[in-house]
């Protein structure tokens, strides 16, 4: 089955335009990154850390940054289906030739692109601040091991996971607020593994990091198929299963 790029783009562009005018979305996208860059900065610069504790502190700081690709998209993707349903805008879209996979991909891209931009930008700010103001031991610890690789690899994959979980919850919910709370909670489990590695409970080699990333990628792709299968036009329009 081939996806129509134009239909996917139509949904994505519409979503991005809608975000631009939506104070709640703008607020979420602005507040979460600010919150999760301030905490690691304090962690790095305010604490008097030396010796073997440096690596654990750096790991914890970077773990905060990985919350951004989970939190930012889960809130907007949880709104994606149930929000349209509440506004009465879902039915006019569903009566166009769009296929459910196109609709969902368009929605996912609209959450994915700004998340990636924000998360990488925040990481860039973090690296720049560390290079300028942190002591050399901390800077060395940031670039040692797999910290940077984990950030680069897992930011899009965690975002993908959070988005599909958010859309799945949204497609099954009847209330936006419940959907948002559930999707944030359901997006968290992959962070637990990364928390163990960031805090050096599990030593993450490059090979293991790539292996975990590949597994998360496979889960993301599977999640896309599962969410598409869950997307039932009849239930969304009438509230009853086909």
């Amino acid at each position, binding site marked *: 089955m081939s996806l129509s790029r134009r239909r996917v783009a139509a949904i994505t562009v519409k979503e991005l335009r809608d975000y631009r005018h939506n104070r709640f979305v703008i607020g979420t996208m602005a507040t979460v990154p600010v919150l999760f860059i301030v905490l690691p900065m304090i962690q790095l610069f305010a604490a008097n850390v030396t010796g073997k504790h440096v690596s654990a502190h750096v790991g914890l700081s970077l773990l905060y940054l990985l919350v951004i690709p989970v939190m930012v998209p889960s809130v907007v993707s949880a709104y994606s289906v149930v929000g349209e349903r509440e506004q009465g*805008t879902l*039915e006019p879209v569903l009566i166009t030739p769009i296929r459910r996979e196109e609709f969902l991909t368009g929605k996912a891209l609209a959450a994915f692109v700004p998340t990636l931009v924000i998360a990488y930008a925040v990481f860039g700010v973090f690296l720049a601040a560390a290079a300028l103001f942190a002591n050399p031991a901390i800077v060395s610890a940031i670039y040692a091991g797999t910290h940077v690789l984990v950030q680069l690899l897992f930011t899009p994959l965690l975002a993908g996971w959070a988005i599909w979980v958010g859309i799945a919850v949204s497609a099954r919910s009847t209330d936006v607020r419940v959907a948002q709370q559930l999707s944030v909670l359901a997006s968290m489990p992959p962070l637990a593994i990364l928390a163990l590695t960031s805090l050096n409970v599990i030593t993450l080699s490059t090979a293991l990091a790539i292996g975990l990333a590949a597994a998360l990628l496979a889960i993301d792709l599977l999640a896309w198929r599962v969410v598409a299968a869950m997307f039932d036009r*009849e239930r969304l*329009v*009438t509230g009853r299963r086909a």
Partner: protein
Amino acid sequence: MSSGRSTAGAPKGRARSAAGSLAPAYGDHALTVERLSKRFDDRVAFEDVSFEVGYGEVFGFLGPNGAGKTTTVRTLGTLLAPTSGSATVAGVPLRAENGPEIRARISIMPESPGLYLRLTVMENLQCFAGLYELDQVRERIERALLAVNLLDRARDSCASLSKGLRQRVALARALLNDPAVLFLDEPTSGLDPVATREVHELIGTLRERGVTIFLTTHRLEEAERLCDRVAILSTTLRLIGRPDELRRRLFRRSLDVRVRASLEDPEAVFGALPEVEGWQQTPAGYALNVSDPDVAAPAVARALVAADADILSIAESRHSLEDVYLELIDEDVEAARR
């Protein structure tokens, strides 16, 4: 009364799009519906519905709230899967795998406009032009907005528009893809009289252009004014035909006679006329059952003059579509009581 099936009186020919171009004709009928049913668990939404709609026809689908009108539209628009029966929509068999093809050939304007209120009119229409994969997007949007007299509001946010204007934007959105069949689901629901008149005028304009329109409504004067044929649905299809045909089918033709003073012996006046099949006194005068009012009226006038009556008026009784509708719905209520 069994479900009817007819295209008698339907205008022939191909649909002309909102833009003025000929829309493609997919087969002989824009819609062919055969014994279509939809149930939700044990609740019947509509059952055993059959009808055909010709290209260029404005077809009214009437019924009380909960009669199954919107469910029928959603089923024909492939949003819902029928429980049984078959249909062809714009030349394409109604099957799940044909959903995208059917939806590309039709448009549905739901009861609620469903616009993205934070976006402008233009942005809303651009989104839908993309969903239909249309070429010459700007030209098409301008034509659609021109058709609904909203070209000057293209840059306005939809949130700033009145309910009537939002309905017009929804209509422009439905016209974007030059649909072979345009489904309008209660297009004037909740509108004030001015906005209702505007929507009626727009539908009238589309009708003149030959757009095939499937109009669901419970506003009977709307259906009578706009539709070539109407069907009355109350879970099953109760009646189908031109409004005047339905009146004739349900009501005997009659003459209303008004005279200045009551006749001394009405039976002597009306009973002697072969053109009059029966008569009864009414508060306003006399109601005469006749088979042909054009033949009976002069004979009645002559008889009244001969009887020295002062005639105020002799006119054919006019039963509205509302009378037809209420007669059928009353039958349903009676049947439910039994």
